[in-house]
């Protein structure tokens, strides 16, 4: 799906870095709907998991303190060209998305 984008770049400290941009409102539950005056309920990504060739290497835990459209970067020092990197996330409503890229 196009709502999660990934980039893999070489890391200065060796290995690679994965950058993920996930389209998500990350609502805190404090904002009010301007028309109704009602509070917009919390809606945020909870866990975002990173895997290399199917094995999880990191799990990012997000909450309402993370900005809208989270831009998350994680190091994958042992990845090599040809490895498949997958990112998948799930939010507090059980909605989810994922993306996959091969290291060049």
């Amino acid at each position, binding site marked *: 799906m196009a709502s999660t984008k990934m980039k893999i770049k070489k890391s200065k400290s060796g290995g690679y870095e994965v950058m993920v941009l996930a389209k998500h409102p990350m609502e805190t539950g404090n904002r009010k709907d301007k028309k109704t005056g009602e509070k917009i309920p919390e809606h945020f990504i909870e866990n975002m998991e990173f895997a290399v060739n199917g094995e*999880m290497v990191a799990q990012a835990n997000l909450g309402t303190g993370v*900005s*809208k459209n989270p831009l*998350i970067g994680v190091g994958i020092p042992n990845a090599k060209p040809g490895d498949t990197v997958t990112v998948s996330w799930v939010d507090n409503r059980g909605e989810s998305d994922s993306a996959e890229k091969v290291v060049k």
Partner: protein
Amino acid sequence: MKRRIFLKGSLAAGTLAVAAGAGMLTPKSVLAAAWPKAAFESKTEVEALQAFFGTSDVEQSDKISIKAPLQAENGAVVPVKVMTSLAGVEGIAICAIKNPRPYTTSLRVTDGGGGLYSTRIKMGQTSPVNCYVKAGGKLYMASQEIKVTVGGCGG
């Protein structure tokens, strides 16, 4: 397909309770690690550290570097990048101590992960941003104050 099974497994993992102890990953519990709710809901940093790392005994480390603006243009989007050269990284956490809930985000790392985590956080007001790294069984931290003129917690 292997990928679909992996995704199914990790999505279902949210419903599994984490075993005793902290919210850290051990190789076996990796796929079962639930979202660290207690840490996110903590009103104090000490409670949050206990909930996630299992300890709040921390020492300063010059092996943790923080890349973040000294002044945030917009409190709703404050970029913070934590890098560390400490060996055996197990987890990283970022706390904006003046936020109503100071614990903003964390990263659990297994053998294949590294000592780098970058994100964008919301800050309600000027505050020190404390970056914690658990490595080799010990908890370390570095801190940087970020000035905020336009708060970003909403409401």
